[in-house]
Each structure stands twice: as C-alpha cells, then as structure tokens.
C-alpha cells in the first residue's frame, strides 16, 4: 500500500484526521505521513489493524528550533510605465516545534518501512503527544528515550520516566540549544 493510499485510508476511517505527506527531497525519497496529534492514537490503531503495520521498529525525535525562511518572489510591477520583473525577498519565521518519528513495518506482508510523524505545538510548554505504546509495545523504551533526550511528554505512556539520564536531571541533551555545564570541559575552556 502506497503512502497516498494509506493517507486516504486514514481519512476515510477517521473523519477529521489529517495525514499530510511530508516529501523527502533526498535521493532516498523516503516520504512520510504527518499525522495530527489529536488523532494520533486512533490513526495508529487503523495503521496496525487495517493497514497491517504490525511492527514498530524505531522511534526517534527531531528538534526543530525556530528558523527563518527566505523566499524570493518574482512580481511584475510597473516602473516608469514599463512592466518589469522585480525580485522580492520575503522572510517568514517558522516557529519551533518538536517532532517524533515512527518507523513501521508489516511482518505479515513483508512490507515497510512506513514513516509517520507527529509534531508538538511548540518547544516550551505545549510538548504533549499521544503515546503509541498501547498500540506497539516496542515503542515503550524508545518513547522514554525521546522523553528523556528531547522532552516530549507522551500522554498515555504506561511508565514515562527518564531512561538514559538520572532522575533529577532537568535538561534535554539532544535539543539543539542544549549547552553542557561550563565546568564540564576544562581543557577547552582555557584562554590564551
């Protein structure tokens, strides 16, 4: 089943579910489906029970900090009575968010991977996403790892604790803006 078919299947089974295709422009061309977080758990059930993706092999996180995108737009304007093409650069700020990526396979159909993503609203206070551990048990430890290193809170996870760092650690080391403690690397800190 292609991604387009899966996307329309999701939208047919779950009214209001958004399953947007995220195009990967690299030579691998591995496109993915961006599912809205409200329908995340229900969509996962459809993917497992109806599409047949019975195995979740990998869960990972991505940190997208706030970034600026510059677009060049060509517009036609009248300058001194002559129509000319003028290039304008438009800067738009894309707010930051956290993203979780699941790689799904079908053992019974020998198919996959199907990559699905979910995104949080921002990187600071609204970082909750539905946990897919109730659907794929193999996601449990990997969601804990994403929680530990990226700070995404998984609603519905049976045992959401830090897995690599210790209890009481407050940072999320895999975020782009993570700074290690200053006295960590004395050899680099020296000044001439």
């Amino acid at each position, binding site marked *: 089943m292609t991604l387009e078919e899966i996307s329309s299947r999701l939208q047919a089974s779950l009214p209001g579910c958004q399953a947007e295709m995220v195009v990967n422009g690299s030579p691998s061309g591995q496109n993915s489906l961006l599912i809205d977080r409200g329908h995340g758990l229900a969509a996962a059930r459809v993917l497992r029970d109806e599409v047949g993706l019975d195995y979740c092999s990998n869960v990972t996180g991505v940190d997208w900090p706030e970034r600026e995108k510059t677009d060049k737009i060509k517009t036609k304007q009248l300058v001194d009575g002559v129509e000319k093409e003028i290039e304008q650069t438009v800067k738009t700020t894309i707010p930051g968010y956290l993203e979780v990526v699941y790689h799904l396979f079908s053992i019974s159909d020998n198919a996959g991977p199907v990559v699905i993503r979910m995104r949080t609203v921002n990187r600071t206070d609204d970082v909750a996403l539905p946990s897919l551990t109730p659907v794929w048990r193999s996601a449990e430890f990997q969601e804990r790892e994403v929680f530990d290193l990226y700070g995404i809170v998984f609603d519905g996870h049976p045992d959401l604790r830090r897995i*690599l*760092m*210790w*209890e*009481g*650690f*407050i*940072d999320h*080391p895999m975020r782009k803006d*993570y700074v*290690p*403690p200053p*006295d*960590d*690397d*004395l*050899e680099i*800190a*020296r000044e001439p």
Partner: protein
Amino acid sequence: MDQDLKTELSKHGIFATTFEELYNWGRKNSVWPLTFGLACCAIEMIATTMARYDLARFGAEVFRPSPRQADLMIVSGTVTKKMAPQVVRLYNQMPEPKYVIAMGACAISGGPFRDGYNVLKGIDRFIPVDVHIPGCPPRPEALIHAFMTLQDQISAQHLTGEARPRHLKQELPSEFPVPEFGEHGLEPSQNDDVFRNPLKVLQG
C-alpha cells in the same frame, strides 16, 4: 646492600635481601584485579587474561568479584556520568594498597565520546590513576605493558621516608568523595584534590 656483594653471597648459597624488597616482591606479583568492565576495552582485558596473552604470568590471574579482595581496578571503557559514582564507590570499597589502571582513550579522557552529554572526561577527575594506557581499544600487549609498569612502580616504592606510597601515609585519604547527580551534571564535576585542573596548572 651492594649488588656485587649480594651476587657474591648467592654464589655461596646465601640469599640476602631486605624486608622492603621482599614485601614489594610479594605485592607486585599478586596484584588481583577487580572483575569490572565498562565497554569494548573490557573485551581486550578479557582477551589479556585468556590463554593467548595469559596475564596469569604476572600473578594477576584471579579477577576478584568483590572489591574487598581486589588490589587493582582496571577502568576498561567509557565512564558515563551515570556510572561514575558507582566506579568511585567501588574504588572506595577496595582495601589499601590499591591501584588504578585507566585503560583506553575513554577512561583517560573521554576519548571519541568526549563531547557526549553523559560522558565523564576521564576517570582521573575523581580517583587517582597510576597508569594510563592510550588506545582505542589498547591491544592486550598494551595492557600487559601497563601491568608491568605498575609492577615496576610497586617495586620502586620505599616503605619509609617521604616517597613512601599513599597507603603508608596516615594523613592521606584512602576514600574519595562520591559525586552526586545534579540537575545539569555531576556535583562536583571533579575532585580538585585528585585532578590536576589544566586551567589552574596553566595559571600557575
């Protein structure tokens, strides 16, 4: 005692030695390591103890599963910040005299994982290290060389005087503070009594 006189006496069937020599000879040939491996260097350490390299030739064949019976801690592998307190605690539980070999790039400096958020940048920040072995991982020959270096260090120690080893100096500690898990990293991030802070060394 003069070496020539000793040789001359031994020709007549008389063995002369000092208590210091006898004591150090006994110690250096029965250094029992702690059964303790952290990462891939531990595999090389295990290979060193096996028949091909045979660490038993040096009197170190018994790896003790209890720190109370061990003389030598071979820190073989990456020390994560989460593991560091346990490593220091194991060292504290070993009886004096005790020695530490930091085996491999990770144990001496953090190695290829130095920039990792959870990697301790060298175990010598918390416990005194007697021999450092570079390498990633060091070959068994390198570990044997480190072991022989440690034996040389032991046999060169004097039982009296200022140069006597740490365990014979009453005022020096045999236990070192165990770092605690903080909000951002280990607290303290190093033991200044043990670690020669390069910043302070440079500043004089």
